[in-house]
């Protein structure tokens, strides 16, 4: 993880000098995680693609603000993506969740057992229905790869706050999913 972080910092340094290869490499490594973060936060694949691109362009613009002593490049990227997502969510009213879910039901889903898929979609709906503050904690720490420290940096709050939001979010999810019979 440390080696990865050092490699990413090196890529970021090159990217900030305008190195296209470094941009492509960092994008290749991290675009998936950012894309999933946005997808889980918004439930929209089109938005996920847009915001992923915007996140990397913003990194090229504001990457000089990155402070390696405070966390990983990934945490910094999550922070940028989070800000962009919140801006978009402010602008756009949430649409019908069922419609959103259809948007990103990929080929892989077709192969899944229908019951299981429905169950996963129930979980997805439950996550999307969480208030953003709690949703982002779950998306980063449970659905993403962020450590509590990275999540704290991305969310701009102490690690303790991340933990308490996560606990609260899990309690809300438990309540929401209690009524459904999940076949996971």
């Amino acid at each position, binding site marked *: 993880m440390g080696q990865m972080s050092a490699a990413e910092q090196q890529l970021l340094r090159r990217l900030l000098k305008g190195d296209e290869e470094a941009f492509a490499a960092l994008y290749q490594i991290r*675009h998936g995680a950012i*894309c999933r973060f946005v997808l889980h936060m918004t439930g929209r694949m089109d938005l996920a*693609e847009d915001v992923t691109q915007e996140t990397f*362009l913003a990194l090229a613009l504001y990457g000089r603000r990155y402070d390696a002593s405070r966390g990983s490049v990934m945490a910094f990227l999550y922070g940028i993506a989070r800000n962009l997502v919140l801006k978009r969510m402010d602008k756009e009213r949430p649409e019908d969740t069922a419609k959103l879910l259809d948007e990103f039901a990929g080929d*892989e889903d077709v192969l899944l057992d229908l019951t299981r898929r429905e*169950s996963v979609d129930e*979980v997805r709906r439950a*996550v999307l229905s969480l208030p953003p503050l709690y949703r982002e904690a779950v998306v980063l720490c449970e659905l993403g790869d962020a450590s509590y420290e990275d999540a704290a940096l991305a969310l701009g709050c102490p690690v303790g706050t991340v933990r308490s939001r996560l606990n609260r979010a899990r309690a809300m*999810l438990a309540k929401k999913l209690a009524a459904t019979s999940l076949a996971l």
Partner: protein
Amino acid sequence: MCEERVTEALKALRRTDAGVETGPEAGIRALLAFRRQQRRRKLQRMAAVWGATGAMAAAVVLTALLWPARETPHKLIAIEAPAAIAAATVPAPVPPPEVKRVVPRREEPEEIVTPFFPLVESSSPFERGLLVRMTVPASAMRTVGLKVGDDHLSDSVQADVLVGQDDLARAIRFVSYRK
């Protein structure tokens, strides 16, 4: 619903979406956008450098024009009356006569001025201003494109500087005299 079930549910969602990412065309779009962004930034940096250089050049020109300059004081020229005229007006006895100094009329030299040369571009239009007659080094004439011999660069010349309502020196013209 117990803790484990929530954990299981979230893990299932995570597993299902593990392969979700933007398509390759999105990567190409991002790279092209990065290229455009870098080009734009390069142009902005160049514009900033040119802007700073221009501002420095303007400052140098203004300094050259205004720093050594001062408003020409109105010179009072005391001209002594010619001795012959003075002697003719003095009578021999007392009381002592009032001596009148007679100043011979001089022909005023003809003032020749160049057109106005703009100095700085201001965002606000010229509304009102002040024309200030100054003495400036001849080298200032070069800054507006007029020819000045190298051996005359340190000479002083008269100039009218047009100062706008915003205290910016907007234009300058040079003055010479023909006798």
